[in-house]
């Protein structure tokens, strides 16, 4: 059977990985190429590169780096950040991305997901969505989680999947950064609503949080995290060993 996936996410700005990384044995801890290779070698099932630059010039640096990463790493690569048009899809796919993740771009242009799915296939289109509870209702936030769009999240996700999103990354703003575990309640609501893979994001603080995620919500396909991997608080080989000991199917 298909294994559960463990996915580190790297934020890249001006060709460097930001948010700080704390690894021993890497000569350049903020090189996307070195870090990508490190994760690929230690058993990450996929990598997400997130472009957090703003200007067109910086975007060019990102795509150059992406090419270099794709040349070095032989696991699936997902790229997100600033994807607003089909040309953006084209640009990152030509650099070697396998999947493209859209967030705010899908909100401002609801035609983007169906057009991209038609051209590149559903499997290539990932919906990334930042969700927060507002008065007990799941709301979609845009612009890096700063702006409440007022859109109800579960119906939005269902709409995007019906229109061709082949995978959903659900980032809970409520649990993000808290390290108290994934937002199981929110993840359950979403994974019951769609039949495509759901990737949990936001809240993992330790290996046991991943065990709880996959044990309690067998429908969830993957767990994504950033800083706990970058700072070595959770090491992927050990995480996978613990998951395996708990009878969760992983690639060792």
């Amino acid at each position, binding site marked *: *059977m*298909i*294994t559960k*996936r463990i996915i580190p996410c790297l934020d890249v700005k001006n060709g460097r990985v930001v948010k700080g990384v704390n690894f021993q044995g890497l000569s350049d801890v903020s090189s996307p190429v070195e870090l990508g290779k490190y994760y*690929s070698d230690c058993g990450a*099932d996929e990598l997400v590169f997130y472009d957090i630059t703003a200007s067109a010039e910086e975007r060019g640096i990102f795509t150059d780096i992406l090419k270099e990463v*794709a*040349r*070095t790493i*032989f*696991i*699936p690569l997902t790229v997100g950040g600033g994807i607003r048009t089909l040309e953006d899809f084209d640009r990152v*796919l*030509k650099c*070697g991305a*396998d999947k493209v993740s859209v967030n705010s771009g899908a909100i401002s242009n609801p035609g983007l997901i169906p057009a991209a799915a038609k051209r590149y*296939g*559903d*499997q290539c289109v990932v919906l990334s969505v930042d969700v927060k509870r507002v008065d007990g209702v799941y709301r979609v936030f845009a612009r890096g989680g700063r702006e409440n769009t007022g859109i109800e999240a579960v119906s939005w996700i269902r709409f995007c999947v019906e229109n061709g999103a*082949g*995978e959903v990354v659900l980032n809970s703003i409520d649990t993000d950064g808290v390290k108290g575990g994934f937002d199981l309640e929110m993840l359950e609501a979403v994974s019951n609503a769609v*039949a*495509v*893979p759901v990737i949990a994001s936001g809240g993992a603080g330790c290996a046991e949080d991943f065990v709880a995620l996959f044990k309690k919500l067998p429908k969830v*396909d993957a767990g994504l995290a950033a800083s706990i991997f970058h700072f070595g608080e959770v090491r992927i080989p050990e995480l996978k060993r613990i998951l395996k000991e708990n009878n969760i199917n992983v*690639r060792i």
Partner: protein
Amino acid sequence: MVGIIDYGVGNLFSLRSSFEAVGEQAFVSGDPEALGRADRLILPGVGAFGDAAAKLRESGLDRFVQEQAAAGKPLMGICLGMQLLFEKGYEYGEHEGLGLLRGAVVPMKGVLPAGLKIPHIGWNALHFRQPECPIFKNIREGDHVYFVHSFYAEGCADSLAATAEYGVELTAAVARERIFGCQFHPEKSGPVGLAILKAFSEV
């Protein structure tokens, strides 16, 4: 030297880099003359069976691949490229494949038990049907590889080399004489995938 056949479908960048990573020179070309000089050939492919088969025919590369395979040159189809090795594909209609292997490519839809998602996407374990298959010489039974597909090959018992369990036994790899095929993406399957490409480059 590995020739990667370019007939206008998909990004061949990762495939070329993965051969380079195992120390094997590879080039991408759509020119039969250049490809004819390669020691072995890769038939890649993403997208829909009918489109890809039509593009192969329009470029005349279908005949070229058939002739090269008949002459005994090692050939490996990857993903849709593997599917094209068969007689027929039933993806949005009925389409002729290259007919190098017996069997047909059919949808998973309706075949999988309820609750399993389509496409079959992610890392799954290989179960050998031909443990002595030369492309497996550097890997082990149960090793994981990366799949992305919604259609699979059936009726191919005489070439079936490995399966992957997904509610049903899906055709994961095929081999007959010097014709090989991987439904998964070796170029996206980490060290295991690279070991398969390395082994193919030594066939």
